[in-house]
């Protein structure tokens, strides 16, 4: 690279945005990383231990922190990217607060949003105390305390797969990919913290698609006595003992089943982030029927937008785990560099 380094703006400072920023900076580009939250990190800041190996999430968080300690990277927090437009031969972005920033290219890495579990009313989230989401269970792990709302220790916990995913009733036909293995990971964590607490996973299909996921599933059965019941829970209620009661078909036995639970954990799915959606609308970026950003080709154009100088990284395009998000972000950098070299 000759002369003044070219400048790339990254919208969103989650795993994808951070990895893209670090990679570009290593290659000598000037980077501005814009994050709407208080600090970069995105969703993984909330996670406790990560699948597939249940390593402490802190290890990956500190990798990411170091990744953006770089003199070529300028980080702007508490700022939202509102619009991307062409400007001269490059691009300009409008930021919240009315400011503007110019660059040679933009990488969009606005990530995902968790499904709002209140939209599945029949599960009683926000109505019954002991119905929580998978993200809230991660917070309990972080505090090292799994208790019911009244402070007592649960003796049976049920994890409900596919909440807000694969469900026409909430307008999400897609599979969120990470929640089956998250359930298995969380089931093991519960069993380790509370050895006398029974754990049940209610699934429709076990989607163990990544390396060592199936092994984790096997480990859950072999060493942790996690129970698996195949069926979609149709509803939850509370009985006079203030215990949750769920209804499901045990599809393998071919009979309806009812069960009392102390805590019901909803494995909430991944949706396109609202702030990414607004950015897409303001900037003319296309979205697929699943509402995530649509790339120009599912196979060989998976980081490309249909707008010149704008590239995509991470879960703003589809649900992904951390491994795939990092690979996708690096690939976005390769596409960006190819574009900048041709300018």
């Amino acid at each position, binding site marked *: 690279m000759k002369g003044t380094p070219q400048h790339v703006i990254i919208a969103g400072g989650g795993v994808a945005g951070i990895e893209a920023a670090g990679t570009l900076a290593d290659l000598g580009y000037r980077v501005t990383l814009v994050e709407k939250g208080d600090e970069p990190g995105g969703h993984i800041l909330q996670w406790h231990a990560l699948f597939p190996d249940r390593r402490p999430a802190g290890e990956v968080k500190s990798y990411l922190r170091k990744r953006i300690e770089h003199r070529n990277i300028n980080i702007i927090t508490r700022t939202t990217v509102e619009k991307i437009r062409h400007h001269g031969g490059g691009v300009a972005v409008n930021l919240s607060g009315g400011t503007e920033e110019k660059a040679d290219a933009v990488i969009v890495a606005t990530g995902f949003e968790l499904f709002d579990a209140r939209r599945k009313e029949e599960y009683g989230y926000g109505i019954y105390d002991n119905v929580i989401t998978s993200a809230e269970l991660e917070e309990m792990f972080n505090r090292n305390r799994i208790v019911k709302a009244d402070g007592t220790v649960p003796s049976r916990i049920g994890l409900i797969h596919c909440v807000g995913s694969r469900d026409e009733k909430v307008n999400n036909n897609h599979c969120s990919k990470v929640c089956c293995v998250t359930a298995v990971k969380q089931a093991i964590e519960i069993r380790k913290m509370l050895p006398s607490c029974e754990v049940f996973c209610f699934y429709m299909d076990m989607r163990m698609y990544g390396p060592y996921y199936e092994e984790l599933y096997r480990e859950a059965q072999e060493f942790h006595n996690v129970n698996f019941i195949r*069926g979609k829970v149709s509803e939850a209620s509370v009985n006079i003992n203030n215990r949750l009661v769920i209804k499901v078909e045990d*599809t393998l036995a071919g009979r*309806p089943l009812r069960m009392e639970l102390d805590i019901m954990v909803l494995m909430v799915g991944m949706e396109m982030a609202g702030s990414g959606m607004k950015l897409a609308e303001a900037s003319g970026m296309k979205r697929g029927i699943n509402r995530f950003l649509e790339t120009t080709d599912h196979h060989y154009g998976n980081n490309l937008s249909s707008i010149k100088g704008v590239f995509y990284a991470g879960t703003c395009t589809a649900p992904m785990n951390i491994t795939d998000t990092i690979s996708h972000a690096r690939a976005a950098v390769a596409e960006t560099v190819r574009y900048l070299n041709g300018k």
Partner: protein
Amino acid sequence: MSIDQANKFGFTINRSRLIDYDASDRKVRDYITAREPSFRLCFACGGCTAACTAGHHTTFNLRRMNTYIRRGEIDPLREEVTRCMLCGKCLLVCPRGVNTRNVVAVAAEAIRKLDRNEL
């Protein structure tokens, strides 16, 4: 072993448990699919069966009924279609948007036609 002994121990001739896919007949499935195309979307989650009041008291099971239809297992299907009360509770649950109640209604119609050799 004498015939007598065989009877005592229950060695009568059993009907095969096999789903003989090539011997069974999928006319009923095709009739239903043509009239209620959403039937194709069932992914056997059992949400309907969990919600169904009829299924709590009888062996009725809508998810299993769908499978019988797909496989062309007409005999067990015959019994299933009579048990649904067409209340529509299952419709509220189905994550694939199958028009479940209509599947039962059309299945009953298909069987009537089959018996009259009209299918």
